[in-house]
């Protein structure tokens, strides 16, 4: 077993939707995610993957059970505290890029860091350039976000997710809108982040190759975990 620091843990998370009728979307979901792990969430459409991801994101607080991030219980905290936790510890990548159209790519990447206020404006700018460079976007930095291709925009949104060096990066179908080349590119970046930066990635995906190549895959069906194969750090045993 490798060094297994638990970075995120859920304790019997359950959630109901009441519209149009009451039904249980998530049922007794308990798992742990480790530092440096590349974790994928799969399952049929409607199985509750996105719903679970939003619970993990701290943006959805209407669930039962408990959520721990970096050893700290976040369930029950106030919304402003949760916003601060997100700013510091969680990065997001969605299927859509959600870049602010009036701002340059660079500014879009800088905004979460300026909000966090940990670094000076100049340092933030430097770091944003670094992240964009890492994603091969240095030349696009000063262009308005709306003037980029879909793949470039998605990479800018990844740079934005990385700017505060979050421990956790949550992704909902991050490659859903990308062609296979761009998808592979994003996958490689994620791989590298886990390996080199020790960041934990939890990604919802429909892409089988993407899931297969991740460290571990959790499969959901009707809101329940039905398999957590390829134990993280135990791949050498199973081979």
């Amino acid at each position, binding site marked *: 077993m490798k060094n297994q620091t638990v970075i995120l843990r859920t304790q019997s998370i359950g959630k109901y939707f009441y519209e149009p009728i009451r039904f249980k979307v998530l049922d007794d979901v308990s798992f742990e995610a480790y530092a440096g792990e590349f974790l994928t969430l799969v399952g049929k459409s409607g199985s509750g993957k996105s719903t679970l991801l939003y619970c993990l994101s701290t943006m959805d607080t209407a669930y039962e059970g408990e959520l721990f991030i970096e050893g700290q219980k976040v369930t029950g905290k106030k919304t402003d505290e949760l916003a601060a936790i997100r700013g510091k510890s969680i990065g997001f990548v*969605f299927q859509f890029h959600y870049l*602010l159209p009036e701002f340059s790519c660079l500014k879009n990447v800088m905004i979460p860091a300026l909000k966090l206020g940990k670094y000076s404006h100049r340092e933030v700018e430097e770091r944003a350039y670094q992240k964009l460079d890492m994603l091969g976007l240095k030349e696009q930095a000063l262009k308005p976000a709306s003037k980029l291709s879909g793949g470039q925009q998605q990479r800018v949104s990844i740079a934005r997710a990385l700017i505060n060096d979050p421990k956790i990066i949550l992704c909902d179908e991050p490659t859903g809108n990308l062609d296979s080349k761009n998808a592979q590119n994003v996958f490689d970046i994620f791989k590298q982040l886990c390996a080199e930066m020790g960041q934990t990635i939890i990604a919802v995906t429909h892409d089988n190759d993407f899931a297969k190549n991740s460290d571990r895959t959790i499969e959901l069906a009707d809101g329940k975990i039905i398999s957590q194969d390829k134990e993280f750090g135990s791949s050498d045993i199973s081979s």
Partner: protein
Amino acid sequence: MRSNINVEIALTHIFTRKRQTLVAALGVTMGIAMYIFSNSLMKGFGRFSRTEIFKVTPHLRIYKDDEISKPLVQATSPRQVVIIHNPKITTLSRTIINPYALLAEVKKQDYISSAAPQVNVDVFYQNGKSQLKGVANGVNIAEADAMFNIQKTMVAGSLNPLSNSLSSVVVGSRIANKLNLGLNDNLTIVSSAGVVKIMKIVGIFSTKNKTTDESKVYLHIAAAQQLVKEGPTYITDIYANIKNPDEALAYSQQLQPITTYKVEDWKTSYADILAGDLIRQIMSTSVSMAILLVAAFGIYNILNMTITQKLDDIAILKATGFAGRDIIRIFVLEALIMGIIGTTLGLIIGAICIQVLSGVYVGGPADYFPIYFDPSVFITSTVFGLLITIGAGYLPAYRAARVDPVAIFRK
């Protein structure tokens, strides 16, 4: 440094929607300009009517009020039978008893800035067959001039002879016109006590107030006492001015216990005119408030539109660590910027309106359009403008702060 990003986002939103910002701001501009204009006008009217009033009326007046006769036996309960009685005015003399002691006492009060005795006599003015009714004001001319600024209204002759001559008189311009009299002509004055005095006109004043100009003359206080066949202790009125005329009512109440005579403040005497002023003021304020409310609605609308279009942006900001209060700050700041632009333009336009109108000649007693530059109007309109825009911004901003990012990301 930390919250600068909120400012930056707000400014970017404003800069990328210059046209809408300007439209919203112009609404505020109209409201503010209207508010400044109408309030300055009201203040101008108010000040004008005050100067008119204070040309002839002191802030406080002490005089002997009419007494009504009382029944010999007072009813102590409503059911008691009372001797039939017919109430009548029983005032025998208008004089204030021991007036100079009272005057000295009044002058001793520290809130009184000046006080003077006066003898007012109802008289007829005659020249040959023509006759006019009026009131002769027996005054100490130096004191009266200090109080009413008579000198400023003089159109011919001089006030000076009144200080020692008992046969000199200064008359209102319309009296002179109607009786066809000029400077140095003789005016016959007949008093209600039957005394006839022929006096020389040494000066003519014109207040441009018709009633005053055709009924009032000034003469020496002793001359007025002669008209009623009385001696030097006959004083009908004591006039007093205070520093701030708006406090007249309070000071009249303070002064009242000193004397048994009636102390009346100018606001009580002119309640009708002042009530009219107040109603006009309320009307114009409510009209400009209504315009400001419409302007606020404009801002509210534009922010609501912005927010509806920017739900995605708000969602990602909240996801990346912006708290509800950051979102509120961003949008309230946008409203505030619109408000500041609009208010500033409104102040400028309001000032220009005042500048232009105050130069318009209208004739009559006012001469120029009675509008003037009052800093307090500019201050209150700025405060109103900004408060209303902040209020108009807060509602949509609050809505934005409550946007559920999950609901947005799910779409």
